[in-house]
């Protein structure tokens, strides 16, 4: 990512200039904010951008983009994706899984954007040898109807989702 991009899409506080470059942790909220709970990742990213986060942590709001997030994915050492996940539990339920725990392409998870979803982009990044350690924080949607508001069930979970993300960024890297 360019410096321009970081300053506008993310909140980067601190970041000592004389120390070795810290691991870049990127929190990437994705989804379509015009389809109520489908946009939960966007709502979470927007909230996180208003908060003070530790040095080296960036927030990117990826909207409905897929392929176009290759620059974000390959620029991260650790990636935390926040998205709606249809897992069959009660609306507002939160899932956490490693990308390697997600059933592998092509049949097990399905992205319905016309081209390619964020998890496929992470897999594709392997082709250029820049794959971040990736965790998905998923939220079970209630409504995918047209509308820019979250359902009450999902909205009520925003503080908990953010709490889980903050725990996640403290978790030591596996590598």
């Amino acid at each position, binding site marked *: *990512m*360019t410096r*321009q*991009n970081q300053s*506008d899409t993310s909140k980067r506080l601190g970041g000592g200039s004389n120390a070795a470059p810290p691991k870049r942790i990127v929190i990437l909220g*994705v989804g*379509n*904010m*015009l*389809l109520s709970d*489908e946009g939960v990742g966007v709502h979470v990213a927007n909230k996180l951008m208003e908060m003070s986060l530790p040095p080296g942590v960036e927030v990117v709001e990826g*909207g*409905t*983009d*897929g*392929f*176009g997030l290759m*620059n974000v994915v*390959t620029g991260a050492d650790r990636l935390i994706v926040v*998205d*709606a*996940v*249809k897992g*069959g*539990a009660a609306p507002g*339920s*939160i*899932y*956490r*899984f490693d990308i390697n725990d*997600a*059933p*592998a*392409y*092509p*049949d*097990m*998870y*399905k*992205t*319905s*954007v*016309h*081209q*390619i*979803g964020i*998890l*496929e982009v992470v*897999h*594709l*990044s392997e*082709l*250029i040898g820049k794959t971040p350690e990736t965790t*998905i924080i*998923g939220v079970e949607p209630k409504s*995918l109807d*047209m509308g*820019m508001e979250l359902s009450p069930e999902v909205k009520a*979970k925003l503080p908990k989702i953010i709490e*889980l993300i903050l725990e996640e960024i403290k978790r030591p890297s596996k590598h």
Partner: protein
Amino acid sequence: MGQKIVVDPITRIEGHLKITVEVENGKVKDAWSSGTMARGFEAILQGRDPRDAPFVTSRFCGVCYSVHQMASVRALDKAFGAKVPWGGTLLRNLAMGAQYIYDHILHFYHLSALDYIDIMAVAAYKGKDKGLNAVKDKVVGLVKAKDTFPLTPRYKPDEFSVTDPDMVTSAVKHYIDALTMQAKARNMGAIFGGRQPHYQSIVVGGFTQLPDVNQVARFRTMLDELSKFVNDVYIADVLAFGTGPLFPLAKIGLGGGHYNYLAYGALELDNTGESLVFPPGVIVGLNPKAIKVDRFDPNKITESVKYGWYKENKPQHPYNGEQVFDLDKKGAYSFVKAPRYNGKPMEVGPLARMLVAKNPDVLGLVAKGAKPGVVARHAARAIETRLVVDACYEWLDELLSEMTKPGFKIHDTAHWEPPETGIGAGFYEAPRGALGHWVKIKDKKIENYQCVVPSTWNASPRCEKKYRGQYEESLIGAPVPDPDNPINVVRIIRSFDPCLACAIHLIDPKSNEIKKFLVE
């Protein structure tokens, strides 16, 4: 009655486009294109402040976000009576230029190229090139591990597929290089766009962010790298394939269609708006030897819902378009409406733009025997990428010169407040074709908003006059010798760069396995 084959979804990975073809004696006899997901995001805009429209419409799609934003601000510029200063136009064009370069590289390498090569030919590469041997090892390794995403799933290679190991291996290497290049183009767009995806700086009246010389320099450095890739790799590959192993496909004119072409025009090269990278115009029934381009008249656009799942209605001009679904309508087979120009179906996109512009490189290929169709479409896309790259250099020079002038302006601040009432049409050229937004403002709020997107033109169903849509017509006569392997159908549709639905992308595992990862 021939055999019916259904291809669903047809986009590279997933999609909302279903194509049904009837095959008789190894050729497509009839075809139906169905958009299988309801659109109608426009309803969300009614009653909102018009200035929200560019940002909301930019969320319609994750690929074409900035072009919706541009069509939207152009509609608002008209409705507000705003005059965008040249500096604002230059910045808009630079942000959009990056979008074009990104989109076309991605489309060719990552969404189309695999339809034309036999990827397994990589294993037979015997050359000494280190980079290519690394590619060979990688692909062979993926095949052994049975993990060939994203190179598969695919249809079986046919007699048109490129099998030369050197060519295929080099194409796969370029596929991988292009992943890095498209990411660079995205970053380049963010320099003036403020962020990406979903640019922040394009608003009614112009642009929000004053540029500085460092940004111009950074943009130029990235453009240099992309320019080199476009000229030395992308165009070289498209021409080597198109005039080499794929020339038989070009000669039979696979994927031709109605030979009607429409371009709204976009990307100003001077302050008068007269000189454009993509001039507007209409071609009806192309005669490649004497191309006749008519003036584009926006009043001649109508949308038919005859075969759409919408309440029966006469064809309407987009200002008066409505979205009332009728899912039980007899004969209906698509959520896509059927736009027509002067009653006729049109192709929009790179080939339409380059033919309307009478581009000498594209006409040269046609003169050599490449009938307009899939190969010409890919060639036109590559050639216009170079036009955009060249224009970006001009815009950077212009911008630097404008920045030094006293009173340098990027926004018409006198027209920021919405008018009491107003109407405006915003025409633009998205990478995949002509895009129009129509807005009606009443009491300073949006009263009606309609978009006609490029894939609506290309993917439309039939209309009152029973004309097939452009996808449908372009499939007629396509060779399908093996009904289980309709690879030509896929080549044709993908050559248009289909982009439908633009909507949901939640992660939807087919099993309930994911439940074990429940944390709350």
